[in-house]
């Protein structure tokens, strides 16, 4: 990412989740799109308010699980039928019932890893630097007990004074300009 300068956005701080949700709804209805809320625990209503309805994590998980199933079952079949056929007490080389057990485990393994790492990837994490950490009140509150709404400067509707005035109407504790 190129080095950027200037304003990342305006960060409004709220004391309660309800205030945050109504401000987020208001901003969305007013036409703002490039924005995000920051909360110390999951607030689904806030995600809904800013127009984030569904994530693709489940799909990634499903694909991962099917891949795990196919990988292990295919590996077992290939090993037991072609690569290294062994006669074990007269059982068939293609003992799919027995193969089901490790295949089941790998379905879960791949699905779980896909869900976890897929979630991190979609979230853009790990990302150790973010402009918001420059805001003086962000780190003391966002992961403890404060609720933030950030309207980002890349939004076409963003105007420093106008947006600040807009946010002030929701009686935030403070509105801070965040630098890159």
């Amino acid at each position: 990412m190129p080095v950027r300068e200037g304003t990342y956005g305006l960060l409004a701080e709220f004391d309660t989740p309800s205030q945050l949700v109504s401000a987020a709804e208001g901003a969305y209805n007013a036409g703002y799109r490039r924005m995000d809320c920051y909360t110390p625990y999951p607030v689904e209503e806030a995600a809904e308010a800013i127009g984030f309805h569904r994530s693709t994590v489940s799909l990634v998980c499903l694909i991962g699980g099917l891949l795990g199933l196919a990988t292990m079952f295919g590996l077992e079949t290939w090993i037991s039928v072609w690569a290294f056929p062994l006669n074990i007490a007269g059982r068939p080389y293609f003992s799919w019932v027995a193969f089901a057990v490790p295949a089941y485990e790998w379905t879960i393994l791949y699905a779980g890893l896909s869900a976890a790492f897929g979630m991190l990837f979609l979230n853009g994490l790990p990302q150790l630097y973010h402009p918001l950490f420059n805001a003086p009140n962000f780190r003391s509150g966002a992961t403890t007990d404060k609720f933030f709404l950030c309207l980002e400067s890349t939004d076409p509707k963003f105007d420093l004074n106008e947006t600040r005035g807009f946010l002030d109407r929701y009686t935030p504790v403070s509105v801070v300009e965040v630098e890159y």
Partner: protein
Amino acid sequence: MATKDVPVNDPMLDPVTGEFAVIAPGHTFKSVTEEVSRIVLTPRTPLGWFFGFTLAGGFVLMLLVALAWLLVKGPGIWAVTIPVAWGFAIVNFVWWIGIGHAGTLISAILLLFKQGWRNSINRFAEAMTIFAVVCAALFPLIHVGRPWLGYWLLPYPNTMNVWPQFRSPLMWDCFAVSTYATISVVFWYIGMVPDLGTLRDRAQSRLGQYFYGMLSMGWRGSVRHWARYETASLLLAGLATPLVLSVHTVISFDFAVALLPGWHDTIFPPFFVAGAIYSGFAMVITLAVPIRKFYHLEDLVTLRHIDNMGKVMLATGLIVAYGYVSEVFMSYCYSASHWEYFMMWNRMFGPMGWSYWVLITCNIALPQLLWSRKLRRNVGFMFLMSLIVNTGMWFERFVIVVTSLTRDYLPSSWGTYRATKWDYATFAGTLGLFTFLFFLFIRFLPMIPMSELRLMLPQAKIHKEAQPIPEAGD
């Protein structure tokens, strides 16, 4: 999930369900955060922690000595020989992995059932799972005799041109346990990321900020992130649930697929899973009681937690009791096989019959006291009961593994088993390792999930109508 209906005006009693609140009243987002994070971020480590850590460290040293001697001399230093080739190593393996299962049950199954009370205990129950799996996985590895060739279990192209044999339950075991360990670690870590972010932001020392900053991967609590995070957590919980049931099922296949009387039982999978959860909940209580006392967490890990865990123990204990009764019925009354008949007689009245009665006393007789609500809410009693149940469950595995093997079909091949000092040292050493890792965990990582506690507070409820909403549009 986001809005849990916790009463606002009556802090102790839920008007809908009539149940007691999980967290003691009067807490705020800040107070629960401080209560949990101060344990980790305090610059002064309590003296008691050093005492326990050193004691556990002594046992870890003993384990290292026992392992070193094992590598020098081989498994002959243990009592394992024919006919009892499995001995303590497999008893301990099954016992440890069973203990781990309650952690997954609390974190995954109770999450799916929306049991809010689990939120205070799930993190350290998950940690317990991981450390128990570490101890468990050690045993099959050192039991194979040449642990440095343990990777031969894995399917990989090699110059010997041989591949694993996938029709063997021992092979299934390898995949079940390794998957379980991996998914448990991932579930635990992902669950911890938001709390690590909190610690990063609250850490005073530079080192702490770097350490937790790296671990938290830059978590900033965006609601988009939270939404994906919640989906991933639910998916992981949904995956961990069939996983935990399958792991002990597969372990029971190690026995049930064999033809030995006492092992060849169709009831083994559900019986093993119930036993695993039983002993695991006992271990959670064993850990929770001293921790909440020592760190003054009585507000967060309340009597209701202890009470509920007592109920789960009672229920799973009764399932286990059903398993014992079924075994007796099958072998004495139903099988019409005198091998089975003799196995059960030998188990009860043979030379090692005492171990069977220890297990009946510890697992069935004494836990019936848990029917009493008063006793379930007595912390000292519950601690004692958890130790009793863990002892009983260890003896259950001992009875299954050792007693069955000592006397099989052919009297000329009968033998006996007497554990050596190295057997005891290795077992005690893993108890030390488990405690050692746990001490590190409670000192350096958040043992109670702060973000989930915040969610349970009445303040977390959204009041839409209470807010004057300015006109939309501008």
